[in-house]
């Protein structure tokens, strides 16, 4: 029942370590499990280390990945990672306050991006998209944020609030159901086809020399800037405002928060709303980066953002953002550099393998995530 700054004490991930220590109790399996985990750790380090080493050597010899390609991979990684981070915030916030993983969050993201696609299309048809892209972007951003926020809040009210006192596995499973429900609602309403956002203007697609030496595509700069502003805004909201303080209080101890006069239900709704708004922003970032959207679009980015949240330490907001960027880098740089360095053909198609391997490796190396704190149930008097 206790949870610090959106960091719950009963770490989801500690389940893993508990399982391990339980098998440790058995005399026979004891060293076996430990040994196996060490084997995985060492193997992972060797594989990754060797891959990177070979890639670097190849680049220095003028073969394989070029310097330009490295730059590109890193920039794409950071931009995509920023988007994952925005999405990961929603997982982390809900986990912090209610203690379950809201697997429908990917669909909240998809919903915003989907609805603003139609607005973008209309703006394009009217010529506003071409003549005033900044205004168009602002409008679709607002539409996406409103849509995602609305979906998140409705889902909380209809699906999760009645389950507030149920064991946490129940809302978790419900969220998977909601996820499918939303996917097929959007498929039913808007069709199953892939929709493509109109192209951003040329000046955004061209590369800009940042700091005079680093050429970055305009869209990616935009993505990073928007993510940065949103993150700063969120930090300010959570740390400095009255509502943010209430949110942290509810995350730590709902009963005592109520004793302070905080309206717990309203605070939980605002948590979903803020998480939803961030997902809406992420939806537009997705549209800028990839342009295509379908009813299924929320699934993979959703799961990856969840991975990012675990990577950063679930419940930790800064961790979610850093986890997102690390995952984005892993996915882009890691795929080409590690797998390419190992000489695996068609490495570019193995992105998803890399992101989920990252999840497994985090659980093996550092179950609490990069910034998570290991706090057991018992440390509260």
């Amino acid at each position, binding site marked *: 029942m206790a949870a610090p700054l959106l960091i719950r004490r009963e770490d989801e991930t500690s389940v893993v370590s508990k399982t391990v220590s339980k098998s440790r109790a058995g005399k026979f399996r004891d060293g076996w499990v430990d040994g196996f985990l060490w084997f995985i750790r060492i193997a992972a380090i060797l594989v990754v280390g060797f891959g990177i080493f070979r890639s670097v050597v190849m680049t220095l010899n003028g073969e394989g990945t070029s310097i330009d390609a490295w730059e590109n991979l890193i920039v794409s990684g950071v931009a995509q990672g920023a988007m994952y981070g925005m999405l990961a915030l929603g997982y982390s916030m809900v986990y912090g306050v209610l203690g379950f993983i809201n697997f429908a969050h990917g669909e909240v993201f998809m919903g915003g991006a989907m609805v603003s696609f139609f607005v973008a299309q209309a703006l394009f048809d009217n010529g506003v998209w071409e003549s005033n892209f900044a205004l168009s972007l602002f409008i679709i951003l607002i539409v996406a944020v409103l849509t995602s926020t609305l979906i998140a809040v409705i889902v909380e009210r209809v699906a999760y609030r009645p389950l507030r006192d149920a064991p946490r596995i129940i809302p978790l499973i419900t969220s998977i159901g909601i996820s499918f429900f939303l996917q097929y609602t959007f498929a039913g309403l808007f069709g199953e086809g892939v929709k493509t956002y109109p192209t951003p203007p040329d000046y955004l697609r061209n590369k800009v020399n940042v700091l005079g030496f680093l050429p970055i595509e305009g869209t990616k700069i935009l993505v990073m800037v928007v993510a940065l502003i949103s993150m700063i805004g969120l930090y300010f909201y959570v740390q400095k405002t009255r509502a943010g303080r209430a949110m*942290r209080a509810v995350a730590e101890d709902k009963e005592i928060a109520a004793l*302070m006069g905080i309206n717990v239900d309203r605070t939980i709704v605002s948590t979903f709303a803020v998480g939803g708004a961030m997902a809406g922003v992420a939806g537009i970032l997705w549209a800028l980066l990839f342009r295509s959207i379908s009813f299924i679009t929320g699934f993979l980015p959703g799961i990856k953002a969840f991975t990012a949240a675990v990577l950063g330490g679930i419940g930790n907001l800064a961790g979610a953002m850093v986890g997102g960027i690390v995952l984005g880098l892993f996915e882009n740089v890691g795929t080409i550099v590690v797998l390419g360095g190992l000489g695996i053909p068609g490495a570019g198609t193995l992105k998803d393998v890399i992101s989920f391997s990252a999840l497994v490796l985090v659980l093996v190396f550092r179950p609490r995530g990069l910034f998570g704190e290991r706090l057991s149930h018992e440390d509260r008097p």
Partner: protein
Amino acid sequence: MTDTVSTTPVLEFRNVNTHYGPVQILNGVNITIAEGEMVCLLGGNASGKTTTLKTILGMVTPTSGEVLLDGEVISGMSTTHIVERGVSMVPENRRLFARMTVLENLEIGAYLRSDDLTEDLERIFELFPRVKERLAQKAGTLSGGEQQMVAVGRAMMSRPKVLLMDEPSMGLAPVLVAQNFDIIERINKAGTTVFMVEQNANMALSIADRGYVLQTGEIVLADTAENLLANPQMRAAYLGHTE
């Protein structure tokens, strides 16, 4: 240590009955607390002490009877509204927001207020100079005694008419228990009405004006602290033979 007589009690239970499902917890409870008094509610486990506090705070609604704050019926109101009207509690085991700084903990105690907090903070620093030194520290890193000061400070930040204390001696080392009761006494002397629920009857009665004894949901004894301490029935049941 005398009975304060006042026209309108700050807090009053009028024939309160509460039930959890079919089980009756409080049975016709009458409690009257005048302004500035320090009153303790004594009783063993499962006697209904916690339910009494929950009833004041609106977490449990009486099935019949009413709770009045300053003459106004508060039973049936939401916790937020009751807290707004001037009740605050120092919970059992303190339960600070461990991840927040000491200052944030104090500020969140004034969550329902929108006016300036400087004066209140100053008052708390005056009572507990140690708290001032620890303002930027995370509350979870404080010692038990310091946490108790912050917990009391947090409850005082809403400028309560009545301060509820739930088992202030629970889980504390004997030295800290004494220190804790000293804190409560100072708060009360500074003018806040205190209603304290406590198992440690000796300790509670040594500082309280009056006491009520609760047994399976019924008030079986109500008297001044002096009389209760001298009461042979009391001594046998709650105070131990050594006293």
